[in-house]
């Protein structure tokens, strides 16, 4: 204490030192300090005096009142509860007593030893004001709790015997003004009056000190403490009032109501008997507002936890002049409180809101009703737990989570007693947003787990469901049912494992879909209705055979065609086992046909009676092999509508961020991405990552106007699993694989596959255009380049921009189909390549009749024993190497570029040989090209050429690229010729 004092003195002297330009002030200050010391001493003296009296009074009350009360026996439940409250009261009493005594003693000692050094800091009621505040509020809380439950009445009765003999002593403890109180009232008074008046004493001492203290710092200390004790006084009188009102209320109510509502801590805050309001629901006539409950009382009663009560003042326009209403909103009930006076409504509104706010804060205001930010209404959004009771979907379910205006709103958990539960987003009382739902299976010991998007209480949009039988559905829902596009996969372990990739309607397979029967290795590609194959369909078998026909409720109907592994085509009616039923027509690979009864019985050669027709045209050779299925039956634009529709809806609904997932599917981090993100922790950010957030997407698409940056952006977008385009492409490649991989690698499906890839590119292009339109609309600016489709210049289009970017995803399956389709030609071609490989360079040039003046022999340096006739793979080497690069890319445009370069290389070499610029006419060029192609030895060249031709920009047709590709194709055809394949060296 002395230390701090000296430091404050030295601070003051420092002050003086600073301001010595004005000598008058320091002088006055010195006087003040002396005066303050004086004032302090006075205050300390009066504090010591009053504490002395208080302490002895506390001791006496303890001996005469508190201890005897504590000695009573409690036999019944209620008695035990009362005793608990009394013990708590005694505990707080002693706490208050002890704190006072300790501090009193310390001060007293200091006062005795060095009175002159006392300062404001020694006055403990100032310095330790918060400690005193705590012990006093706690004491009065316990005291009123005991009083409210009629504790003193019961105690008085129980100790009546004792008081008969000691009544006098009790009376002595009371103020003389009170005449003949009952024992109960006496006990009540004795146990709070002196304590309450002690607070008053403190306030008095501080008031005096405050008046005399002038030094600014100290004055603040004093006035703060004074304020606090004034507030404490307020608090004490308010809580005593509240307690007595509440106590009276319990006395006036029926025992049933009391027993269910009466708890020590509960206080009445408002009563419709004092401030009248009527209730819109007829059964109740009285409203009681407690600090935690709102109670409606009639013959029965209803109580509402204030945490879940919202007060909506009905606007004045709506209420009549004679009725002013408040709408009370609770989770399952709403009613009006109406009063005739606007004032009464205001009182109720204010009180309700204040009490609700305090209830939510779980803290009463101090002093009561005296919060400084008065009128602050409670927050509309709250976190709470509620059990639904009324007859509805939520009956008996427990909701824990955010509420707003009586309804679950925000994040929450809903649990039904049967184990069904939902965790996720709510909106206005219903599941809305993303949520995970577990539905127990009645028969099995498992759950169906839905991770899905919800709207107005139902599953809508994209979701993933893991069923209790371990099958998994990933796709779209509508009204809680599978609807739109989705993939359902059974676990491998089940009896009949399957995978369905396709469209749904109300939980049933409907529309175009692919069904894999994993056991039999059959794949059905076609139309569905009501979970059954219905309409046009193709069945592909592991053997390579395939069937195309019509299905009616899962059964084959009408005529169909069966293409067997050897490419003979059988036309007719078929049984379920794909055996011909009745008459049919068999077309052999060479175009011969056989008509009649063609039932083939197992284990026997085909024995049949029919008409063999061998008069078919020569062109029919291979016609069966070229047969392409599904083109007319499944128009490409209708095949995967279920994937495109949500994307389109997303765009046309304005690309709102929160709807992105429900339309476009959930981003599930792959392990690769996870690894990447972990690497990110250690390394620098990977610049390849792009944002999938829709606003960023729109911004980026708007910004990327020049083809190069657009292409690099789209490249990243299509490879990102978060970007809308990436999500779309993922689905598209999934369905492509589901159709054409494995068993689906059947060359009769090549055209279906090829047109599907092209259509995907078109669609993505269309979506890209739609996105940029949305972006420009949102920006309120037109696109910088609004000229569209004018002039067939070298503008970007789906073939130049999109196809090269998406093709890598489809290439493996697609190229496999091309390889199968061109297998025979490729085999012939390879024979030719092998044969030509035996020639030396000069022999080959000669064989191909390349004009001698074009032979690049000058380029060859020969060692001493070498002759030209022995050199192999040296001529036109750079052209050959250039051509070989064709397999390093899947992009048709790049491949075509390589072809042009190959020609340039040839021309360069020829010009060098001729020693002048030489433009090769086709008569010269074609043999040279055959030479280069044969030296390049590219496998599967037929598949390559046709993939390029089918997927190149149609604008190229007739143009330079088309010409070059045709030239290569003609080389390929030429090499297949017998004269080359079967050439015998002379």
């Amino acid at each position, binding site marked *: 204490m002395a230390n701090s004092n000296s430091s404050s003195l030295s601070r003051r002297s420092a002050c003086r030192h600073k301001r010595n330009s004005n000598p008058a002030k320091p002088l006055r200050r010195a006087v003040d300090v002396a005066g303050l010391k004086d004032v302090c001493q006075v205050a300390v003296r009066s504090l010591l005096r009053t504490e002395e009296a208080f302490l002895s009074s506390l001791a006496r009350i303890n001996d005469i009142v508190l201890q005897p009360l504590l000695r009573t026996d409690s036999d019944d439940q209620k008695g035990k509860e009362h005793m608990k409250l009394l013990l708590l009261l005694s505990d707080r009493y002693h706490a208050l007593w002890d704190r006072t005594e300790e501090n009193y003693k310390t001060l007293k000692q200091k006062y005795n030893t060095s009175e002159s050094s006392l300062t404001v800091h020694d006055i403990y009621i100032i310095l330790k004001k918060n400690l005193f505040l705590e012990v006093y509020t706690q004491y009065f809380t316990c005291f009123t709790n005991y009083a409210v439950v009629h504790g003193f009445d019961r105690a008085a009765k129980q100790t009546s015997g004792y008081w008969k003999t000691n009544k006098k002593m009790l009376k002595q403890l009371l103020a003389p003004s009170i005449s003949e109180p009952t024992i109960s009232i006496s006990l009540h008074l004795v146990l709070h009056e002196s304590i309450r008046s002690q607070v008053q004493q403190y306030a008095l001492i501080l008031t005096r000190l405050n008046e005399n203290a002038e030094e600014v710092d100290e004055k603040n200390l004093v006035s703060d403490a004074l304020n606090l004790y004034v507030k404490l006084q307020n608090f004490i009188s308010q809580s005593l009032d509240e307690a007595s009102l509440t106590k009276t209320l319990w006395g006036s109510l029926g025992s049933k109501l009391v027993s269910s509502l009466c708890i020590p801590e509960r206080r009445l805050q408002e009563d419709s008997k004092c401030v009248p309001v009527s209730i819109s629901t007829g059964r109740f006539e009285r409203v009681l507002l407690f600090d935690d409950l709102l109670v409606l009382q009639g013959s029965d009663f209803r109580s509402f936890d204030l945490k879940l009560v919202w007060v909506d003042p009905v606007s004045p326009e709506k209420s009549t002049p004679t009725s002013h209403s408040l709408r009370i909103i609770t989770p399952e009930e709403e009613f009006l409180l109406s009063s005739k006076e606007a004032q009464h409504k205001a009182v109720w509104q204010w009180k309700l809101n204040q009490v609700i706010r305090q209830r939510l804060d779980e803290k009463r205001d101090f002093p009561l009703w005296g919060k400084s930010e008065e009128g602050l209404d409670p927050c509309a959004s709250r976190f709470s737990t509620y059990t639904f009771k009324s007859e509805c979907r939520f009956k008996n379910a427990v909701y824990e989570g955010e509420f707003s205006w009586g309804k679950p709103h925000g994040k929450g958990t809903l649990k039904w007693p049967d184990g069904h539960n939902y965790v996720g987003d709510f909106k206005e009382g219903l599941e809305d947003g993303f949520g995970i739902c577990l539905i127990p299976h009645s028969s099995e010991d498992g759950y169906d787990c839905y991770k899905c998007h919800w709207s107005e209480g139902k599953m809508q949009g994209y979701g993933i469901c893991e069923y209790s039988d371990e099958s998994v559905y990933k796709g779209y829902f509508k009204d809680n049912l599978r609807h739109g596009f989705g993939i359902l996969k059974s676990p491998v372990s089940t009896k009949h494992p399957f995978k369905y990739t396709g469209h749904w309607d109300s939980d049933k397979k409907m529309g175009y879909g692919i069904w894999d029967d994993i056991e039999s290795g059959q794949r059905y590609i076609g139309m569905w209705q009501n979970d059954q194959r219905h309409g046009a369909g193709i069945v592909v078998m592991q053997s390579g055979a395939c069937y195309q026909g019509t299905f009616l409720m899962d059964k084959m109907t009408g005529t169909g065609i069966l293409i067997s592994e050897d490419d003979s085509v059988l036309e007719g009616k078929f049984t379920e086992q794909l055996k011909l039923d009745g008459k049919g027509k068999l077309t052999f690979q060479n175009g011969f046909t056989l008509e009649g009864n063609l039932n083939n019985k197992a284990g026997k050669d085909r024995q049949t009676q029919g008409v063999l027709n061998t008069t078919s045209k020569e062109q029919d050779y291979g016609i069966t092999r070229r047969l392409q299925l599904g083109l007319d039956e499944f128009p490409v634009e209708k095949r995967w509508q279920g994937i495109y529709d949500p994307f389109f809806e997303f765009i046309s609904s304005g690309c709102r961020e929160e709807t992105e997932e429900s339309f476009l599917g959930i981003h599930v981090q792959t392990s690769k991405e996870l690894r990447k993100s972990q690497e990110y922790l250690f390394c620098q950010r990977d610049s390849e990552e792009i944002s999938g957030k829709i606003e960023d997407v729109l911004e980026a698409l708007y910004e990327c106007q020049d083809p190069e940056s657009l292409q690099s952006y789209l490249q990243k977008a299509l490879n990102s699993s978060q970007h809308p385009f990436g999500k779309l492409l993922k689905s598209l490649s999934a369905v492509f694989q589901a159709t054409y991989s494995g068993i689906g690698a059947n060359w009769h499906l090549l055209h279906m596959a090829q047109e599907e890839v092209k259509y995907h590119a078109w669609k993505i292009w269309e979506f890209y255009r739609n996105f940029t339109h949305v972006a420009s609309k949102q920006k309120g600016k037109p696109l910088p380049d609004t000229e569209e489709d004018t002039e067939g210049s070298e503008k970007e289009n789906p073939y130049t921009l999109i196809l090269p970017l998406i093709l890598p995803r489809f290439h493996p399956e697609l190229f496999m189909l091309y390889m199968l389709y061109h297998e025979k030609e490729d085999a012939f071609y390879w024979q030719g390549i092998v044969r030509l490989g035996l020639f030396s360079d000069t022999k080959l040039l000669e064989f191909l009749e390349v004009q001698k003046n074009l032979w690049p022999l000058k380029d060859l340096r020969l060692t001493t024993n070498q002759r030209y006739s022995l050199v192999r793979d040296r001529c036109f080497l750079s052209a050959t190497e250039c051509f070989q690069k064709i397999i390093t890319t899947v992009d048709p445009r790049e491949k075509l570029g390589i072809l042009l370069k190959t*020609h340039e290389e040839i021309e360069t070499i020829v010009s060098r040989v001729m020693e002048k610029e030489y433009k090769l006419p086709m008569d010269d060029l074609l043999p040279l090209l055959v030479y280069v192609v044969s030296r390049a030895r590219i496998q599967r060249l037929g598949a390559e050429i046709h993939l390029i031709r089918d997927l190149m920009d149609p604008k190229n047709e007739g*143009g330079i690229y088309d010409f070059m590709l045709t030239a290569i194709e003609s080389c390929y055809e030429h090499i297949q010729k017998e004269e080359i394949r079967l050439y015998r060296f002379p």
Partner: protein
Amino acid sequence: MMAIRELKVCLLGDTGVGKSSIVCRFVQDHFDHNISPTIGASFMTKTVPCGNELHKFLIWDTAGQERFHSLAPMYYRGSAAAVIVYDITKQDSFHTLKKWVKELKEHGPENIVMAIAGNKCDLSDIREVTMKDAREYAESISAIVVETSAKNAINVEELFQGISKQIPPLNSHENGNIGTIKLAKQTSQTSRRCC
């Protein structure tokens, strides 16, 4: 601006009759504003006005050697016109020409415009094929016929003008809407359907 029509033209004829020389002459003689890339003398383009259209000729050369004859369909598929060249000094080349005409009639694109060019008319003193024979033959197959000299630039221009005139003009309203119409496109697609 004028609409550009791309017309694929295929060159057929024996080796040595001067197929590409005619085209080289045609392409070089006039200064072309936008020089299009070529494949040597094998693929060239040239744009000429015709009425209120521009005709962009995409000229595809073919190898004249007998052994490559079977590859020709790949080149002439989708062509709007075929220029079949013979050497007036070689009766054989006129014979080959007849074979090409026959093949085009049977397997070529429908409505293909055929133009017969008797090249090397500068060497008429050693001619083997008379003008009359050529005319009569051309009339019988309703083809254009001219005698040209790539060397002296005779009738080359006229040959292609003749082709331009034979190409049916587009409907005027279609003309206004769409900038580019590719005649080759539709025909080539239908022809590919078979494979």
